[in-house]
């Protein structure tokens, strides 16, 4: 079954790559050289000073994303990863936009050289996706080893996500203005802040306490009675009824059902949003499928990791191979070094800072970043300092 899952996923990725190659050959993003050539030269704002030191992507006068800043930011990302858990992609994205001054530099060319402005946007997106793609690869492998990937849902989800991940880069590469990208990114950060905040509220914590109590009660009853000796007839996932609007299946004797349209629609929109923003989307898949589609967590988590991976492979492929978007590699290298330093620091600090306080710290930061990006992106100025 597992082998079959991976064969099917492999075929799916291959099909998507072929489809991308076949359909998208006419769409081609501009190269750095072309974008530089079409930008007005001079010392004014919105002009390129050709005598200035080459910086990001070799663009004269662009900020040189100093590896040390990248390293420091990534230590924070690694720290979040190893203590709070998810949201690493978003944090990496925040670094790519703000910390290195790329957004401000890119925005200066909004009117004078939209081509250069858009090239920088695409490069930030692909840089994020490389980071998220690598992490999705590792998490999918882990889920696979734990036997937590379920094929039927994966196919529905990946079907929608393949379409979204393929269409968005082709439709938007070279078309999205940096300011709009930052605005949408800000809204996304708000959504994360909300999810995480809920987790730290009394209600969120109460849910966890109830789960712990139920698990403990069961654990004690298990000690008294071996569940294997219940004599029930056990079988894996068994589809009991199938229609266009409802699939009912039993999972080792317990009944679950879902509407097959939901994973397709959700997969499409989440993957489209993820590709558009250059994030993984894992944090959206899980609540969507557990709350909206009403599926058990067991099925959702592993399968969504695969959907993220498939989506990322296709997005990166369409951006980099089809659209020729350049990536600033030394920065990603420095960031990976920082992430692993952070992942070592995290366990040591978690002894002194409880998880809930780390989450609250993260929520405050996310609200600040969300406010800043949303207002800067859509209004043109930030309502929180620095303005």
């Amino acid at each position, binding site marked *: 079954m597992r082998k079959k899952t991976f064969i099917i996923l492999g075929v799916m990725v291959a099909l998507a790559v072929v489809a991308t*190659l076949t359909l998208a050959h006419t769409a081609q993003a501009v190269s750095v050289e072309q974008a530089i050539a079409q930008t007005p030269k001079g010392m004014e704002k919105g002009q390129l000073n050709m005598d200035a030191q*080459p910086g990001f992507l*070799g663009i004269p006068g662009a900020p040189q994303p100093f590896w040390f800043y990248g390293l420091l930011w990534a230590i924070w*990302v*690694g720290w979040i*990863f*190893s203590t709070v*858990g*998810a949201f*690493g992609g978003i944090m990496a994205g925040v670094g790519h936009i703000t910390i290195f001054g790329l957004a401000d530099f890119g925005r200066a060319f909004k009117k004078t050289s939209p081509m250069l402005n858009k090239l920088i946007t695409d490069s930030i997106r692909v840089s994020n996706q490389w980071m998220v793609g*690598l*992490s999705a690869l*590792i998490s999918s492998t*882990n*889920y696979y*080893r*734990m*036997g*937590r990937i379920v094929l039927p849902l994966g196919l529905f989800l990946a079907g929608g996500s393949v379409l979204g991940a393929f269409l968005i880069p082709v439709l938007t590469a070279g078309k999205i203005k940096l300011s709009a990208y930052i605005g949408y990114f800000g809204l996304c950060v708000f959504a994360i802040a909300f999810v995480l905040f809920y987790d730290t509220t009394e209600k969120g914590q109460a849910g*966890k306490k*109830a*789960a*712990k*109590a*139920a*698990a403990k009660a*069961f*654990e004690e009853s*298990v000690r008294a*009675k071996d569940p*294997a000796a*219940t*004599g*029930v*007839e*056990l*079988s*894996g996932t068994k589809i009991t009824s199938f229609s266009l609007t409802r699939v009912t299946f039993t999972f*080792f*004797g*317990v009944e679950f059902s879902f509407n097959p349209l939901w994973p397709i629609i959700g997969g499409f929109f989440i993957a489209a949003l993820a590709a558009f923003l250059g994030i993984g989307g894992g944090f959206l898949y899980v609540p969507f499928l557990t709350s909206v589609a009403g599926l*058990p*967590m*067991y099925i959702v*988590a592993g399968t969504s990791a695969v959907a993220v991976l498939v989506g990322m492979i296709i997005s990166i492929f369409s951006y*980099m*191979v089809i659209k020729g978007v350049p990536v600033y*590699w*030394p920065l*990603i*290298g420095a960031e*990976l*070094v920082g*992430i*692993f330093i952070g*992942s*070592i620091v*995290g*366990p040591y600090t*978690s002894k002194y800072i409880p998880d809930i306080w780390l989450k609250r710290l993260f929520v405050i930061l996310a609200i600040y970043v969300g406010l800043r990006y949303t207002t800067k992106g859509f209004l043109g100025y930030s309502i929180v300092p620095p303005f």
Partner: protein
Amino acid sequence: MEMPAFFRMLDPFLIWFYRITGYAWVDFFLGTLVLALIAVILGELTISLAFLAVKKHIDQNTEDTVRYQNLSVDAIAAKDKQAYSAANKLANEAFGKSFFHQIALSAAFLWPIPFALAWMQYRFLEVDFPIPFTGYSVGYIAVFLPVYVAAYYLFKRVKYRLPFFRRMKVILDSYENQAKEMKTFADLETRPGKPADAP
């Protein structure tokens, strides 16, 4: 694009491997294989050191994950949907923590790749490799990645002959045994009562 000082320093050593035979194609693949091997060995070394540094934390995470995962398997076997949902929620949380930490740690293995690609970008950005019968061509990334995978498997074969990695294997093997203790839902297939087991 002008090469930064860090890469200029490494350049004479790395490019030497691209000039061994005098045949352009052979040299390119040979040089890239050496570059990929360096990236693999550096990554293996740093991930081992990082792992040793946070072993205690990983042990705790793994213990929680195994406990709740096993409980959720038992709950579903007992057809207790409520206990299953509760245990599954906790198992997911513990597992989430564990694997996000592993993701962050895996950066210790992957970090040399972007540096290798950065150097290749300065050296081989203009080099195109045509894909036969398609009219498309790929760049240095498409060559480096499969060569890196090959280098990974090559090194895997000799890794445990080196004393440092042999010591690491002893530690890792103890984890393999622990992983076997974790029940998966597939285990239910072999439990009594399953039709396949019936005579």
